[in-house]
């Protein structure tokens, strides 16, 4: 009985292969079929629910000033760093305008840019700067700013690093603390996994173009896990969103500037990334109302709980 089941599974598995084999080669080279096979990737169910033509959303209410008249649905997707703050603002927005439904989804900064450019969502979210190419397709609205701190164990004697030193440490050129004025010990580089917006922002702002984080780096799947790992290892170095800084780790001054929210606000702290809302063209109707709400006092107050408000 048991081997029979195993055989069956094998047969089915192979059948599955054979079945999908002819379907995929059908659209061969013209366009990569990766993202196109509609039902293949499930985690973005919002895409089908929003009908293909994106523009209709703003139409029903062309910038009404009376709050009670606002109605419709706004969809947002993208950066998971932006997601929690967007959810809080959306909740506040919806309680002010009961006729409006705001749907917030994750997916990562890449998804945010892509779906905003394609018009599958009303608003995309990204937790990094746009590339020049991306900037031609979508309009960014800076929601907040977030500093990235370079952190080490509390007992670390080194307390200032230059941006170039940070880059050399994370690319594996500097491997000993003694090379930067510390004890004669190996530096344990701890980073985030590929795909993390914090990692992307760090690589973009700190590392030279094209350089990548050393493959010897320990990778932790979240800001919290990274902080725990750094807090427990006297020789570790890592990077954290400002929102996660606490007294279990020590944040380096970069180029002599301490990693504080004030310095990030002033613009003197060098590793600051924007949290962006992206729209295709200028926002209209309720989407415009929502973005104005986010950038207004009510929205910025929510932003200020975790990040650096812009207004």
């Amino acid at each position, binding site marked *: 009985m048991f081997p029979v089941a*195993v055989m069956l599974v094998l047969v089915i598995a192979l059948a599955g292969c054979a079945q999908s084999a002819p379907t995929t080669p059908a659209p061969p080279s013209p366009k990569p079929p990766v993202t196109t096979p509609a039902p293949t990737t499930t985690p973005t169910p919002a895409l089908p629910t929003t009908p293909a033509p994106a523009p209709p959303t703003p139409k029903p209410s062309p910038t009404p000033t009376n709050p009670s008249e606002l109605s419709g649905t706004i969809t947002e997707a993208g950066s998971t760093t932006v997601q929690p703050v967007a959810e809080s603002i959306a909740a506040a927005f919806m309680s002010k305008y009961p006729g409006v439904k705001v749907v917030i989804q994750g997916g990562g900064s890449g998804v945010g840019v892509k779906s905003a450019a394609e018009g599958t969502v009303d608003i995309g979210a990204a937790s990094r700067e746009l590339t020049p190419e991306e900037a031609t397709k979508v309009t960014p609205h800076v929601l907040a700013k977030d500093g990235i701190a370079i952190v080490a164990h509390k007992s670390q004697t080194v307390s200032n690093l230059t941006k170039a030193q940070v880059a050399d440490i994370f690319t594996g050129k500097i491997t000993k603390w003694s090379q930067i004025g510390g004890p004669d010990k190996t530096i344990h580089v701890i980073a985030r996994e590929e795909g993390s917006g914090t990692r992307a922002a760090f690589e973009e702002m700190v590392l030279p173009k094209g350089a990548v984080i050393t493959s010897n780096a320990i990778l932790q799947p979240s800001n919290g896990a990274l902080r725990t790992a750094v807090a427990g290892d006297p020789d570790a170095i890592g990077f954290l969103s400002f929102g996660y800084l606490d007294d279990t780790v020590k944040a380096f001054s970069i180029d002599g500037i301490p990693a504080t929210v004030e310095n990030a606000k002033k613009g003197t702290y060098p590793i600051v990334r924007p949290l962006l809302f992206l729209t295709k063209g200028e926002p209209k109707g309720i989407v415009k109302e929502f973005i104005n709400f986010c950038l207004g006092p009510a929205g910025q107050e929510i932003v200020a709980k975790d990040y650096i408000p812009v207004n």
Partner: protein
Amino acid sequence: MSRYLKDRLATYFVFACASMSFLILLAIAIFIFKGGFPAFYEIGFFDFLFGTTWRPNQGTYGILTMIVGSLAVTAGSLILAVPLGISCAILLAEVAPYKVRQVLRPCIELLVGIPSVVYGLVGLILLVPAIRKIGGNGFSVLGASIVLMAMVLPTIISISEDAIRAVPSSYKEGALALGATHWQTIRQVLLPVARSGIGASIVLGMGRAVGETMAMIMVIGNSITFPKSPLDAARTLTGNIAVEINYASGIHESALFATGIVLFFFILFLNSVAVVVLKRGTYDQRIT
């Protein structure tokens, strides 16, 4: 008549329930194959399986380092767990007095019930700093192997014990009657006869080791490199999926599904081996 009908209905009912588990397996298989196929098509089967670089941001997807990582951790955990597990099984089946067994058995069974994240947490708090003192940064194949050992032990112990107990008592009595000591009987009669059951216990433990995820992420470091020593960090196939799925989209996501397909065949292979080993045992008993 109505009794007959009831009987039939009950049969259909249990049959339907039993089919569910098969249907679930089928659904999972279809799901991961559908999700992973674009990656195989786009990246190429061999480039994916034997590529040594995994950099989704640059569009390079090779999982060889993770295959090696999974194998290293599994091998490490078995090297630690097999001698321990079999010794413990011998103790429980043959040596220990009744009272000791009454205490030990539930303890070992309780090990199965501990959530894997708790194993990971203990590993992270206790093992990682301890290993850091030996060398490296603490996140290592060694630590992961020790954590996995604890997770695999109950499987090996309980199945091996059952196998040793299943040896007909006439074999043991015969050996003792011929003047063999208790230890000689265990070593030369009981263990050889029970070896297929013991083998199956090891293979099943291996299956658990390959599939373990959460505890691995917490102690192994998740670096995408070949571990050169037990003190080096590595990444497992399961960890690769769990660490990156949150942010993955498009081909990256598909590559993670494809990692799942590789795991699927790993486990399928191991289970088939277990079935074969167990089956062969029934003949072996007569020959030995």
